[in-house]
């Protein structure tokens, strides 16, 4: 649905995108993850025809963004980082404005606006100017406006930045419902949790390049940071275990140890038999895989170190 090869963009001397390749399949959620200033918004702007690329090929919904921008525009919907609603108009007027621009005719426009207001829990605020809405309500209205045209591809540029936890969860549910309807979603976020929750595939953007790509699970597995946590009944047993396991380190908990491990069955078996051979008694054993935070930090710091 979206394919990007060798995308480059600089602003003056400042290289923002330095050869980005991406592939997004129809009906999936793709998340572009990166710190502030990593080039996420620039990527969205190029993919949504707002900016032109310096080099590379970008195809969205089967059309080249540089050669057929109108065809791309007809297929996409964009919900930006800063709410793209008309704050002087009411929620309903904003939706009707979109319906008019999509040539929907009066009756159909009114009907669709009403349905979206209901779906996004904005019916009570429909007649109030958008300037009086909370951050979460403005984001919901923003996304509802994007949906008026039934886009095949939706770009969500940091849709939950600045929202409270409740607003964020609402937004996540909305995104899940959309995917269930077969829409392709290109999501940028700086929250790893969000990518983990929503995305089928994740690309990590750092210093203008994709430094890792895969499912959340794949990314986690690639990164060291997984460990087995062992808990002991007392200090003697813990000391006994320390003598056996040279690579173990103390956990924050006084009676627990961390043993580096990728969590595979093979390594676990080895660990257990070593403890068994020395008759070390363990109270509790748990396997910890790295979360995306570990992945992100590991990837971005690696990149810095090689520079």
């Amino acid at each position, binding site marked *: 649905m979206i394919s990007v090869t060798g995308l480059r963009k600089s602003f003056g001397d400042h290289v923002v995108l330095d050869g980005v390749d991406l592939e997004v399949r129809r009906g999936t959620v793709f998340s572009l993850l990166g710190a502030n200033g990593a080039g996420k918004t620039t990527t969205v702007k190029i993919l949504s025809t707002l900016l032109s690329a310096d080099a590379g090929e970008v195809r969205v919904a*089967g059309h080249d963004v540089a050669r*057929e921008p109108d*065809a791309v525009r007809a297929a996409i919907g964009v919900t*930006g980082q*800063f709410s*793209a609603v*008309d*704050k002087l108009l009411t929620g309903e007027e904003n939706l009707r404005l979109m319906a008019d*621009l999509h040539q929907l005719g009066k009756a159909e426009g009114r009907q669709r606006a009403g349905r979206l207001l209901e779906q996004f829990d904005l019916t009570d605020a429909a007649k109030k100017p958008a300037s009086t809405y909370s951050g979460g309500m403005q984001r919901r209205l923003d996304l509802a*406006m994007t949906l008026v045209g039934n886009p095949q591809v939706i770009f969500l540029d940091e849709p939950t930045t600045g929202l409270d936890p409740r607003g964020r969860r609402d937004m996540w549910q909305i995104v899940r419902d959309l995917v269930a309807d077969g829409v392709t979603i290109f999501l940028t976020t700086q929250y790893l949790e969000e990518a983990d929750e929503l995305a089928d595939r994740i690309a990590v953007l750092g210093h203008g390049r994709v430094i890792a790509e895969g499912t959340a699970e794949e990314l986690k597995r690639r990164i060291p940071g997984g460990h087995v946590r062992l808990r002991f009944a007392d200090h003697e047993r813990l000391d006994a275990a320390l003598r056996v396991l040279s690579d173990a380190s103390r956990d924050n908990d006084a009676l627990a140890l961390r043993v580096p491990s990728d969590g595979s069955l093979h390594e676990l078996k080895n660990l257990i038999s070593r403890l068994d051979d020395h008759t070390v008694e363990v109270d509790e054993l748990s396997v910890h895989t790295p979360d995306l935070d570990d992945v992100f930090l590991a990837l971005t710091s690696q990149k810095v170190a090689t520079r």
Partner: protein
Amino acid sequence: MSTQTLPRLHPIHDSATMLRRNLKRMLRYPSMTITLIAMPVVFLLLFVYVLGGTLGAGLPGGGGRAAYANYVAPAIILMTVMSTVQGTAISVAMDMTEGIIARFRTMHIARVSVLTGHVLGSVLQAVFAVTVVTGVALLVGFRPTAGPLEWLATAGFLVAVAFAFVWLCVALGLASKTVEGASNTPLPLILLPFLGSGFVPTDSMPAAIRWFAEYQPFTPIIETVRGLLMGTPIGNSAWLALAWCAAIALTGYLWSKRLFNRES
């Protein structure tokens, strides 16, 4: 290339949609319109009641305050148009800072409608403002000699003037980096009538200013309005004024279009 056909663009329908958006915005934010009308009204009162007695005495044939009210009203009416178009520059600049313009740019719509919506909205705003200010002028002693046909011609002519300068101000609004900038750049449009035949006849000015006054666009524009309303001779002023308007409208339109399509 894909063989799939794109939905057709509807520039007129989209412009009407954008016009409705701008009219609603004006109604929600009436203080802008009020400010735009207040300025020429203050000038009118100032020129008629404070300066009018003396300035009127200096008119060819004299006549005092009453004569001066008739002399200055056309200039004040024109100032009303300029005040409105200055507001256009501000509202366009304000609009560009809002995310909704980025949304419009990512939609498959007739792009120019974003601008034509502003232009049509401002022309209607100018018609409203001119009506109010003309009403005030009549109250303070403006006694035009125009018949219905002349009034109609005046209205049409002022719409043409408003249309031309609105396009220029749309471009100025797009070109300015800040909203403050947009409120300052059109200021010459308010001042130029002073350097023409708007407030005093040009014969009373020093040679250099007189030369400038006679060749700047506002002099034929004011002379045309004055001729239509007061029956003074128009000569070739009307054609000159319309030529200026056409040139300004075209420049403003092309410039605006280029600015709007540039990348943000």
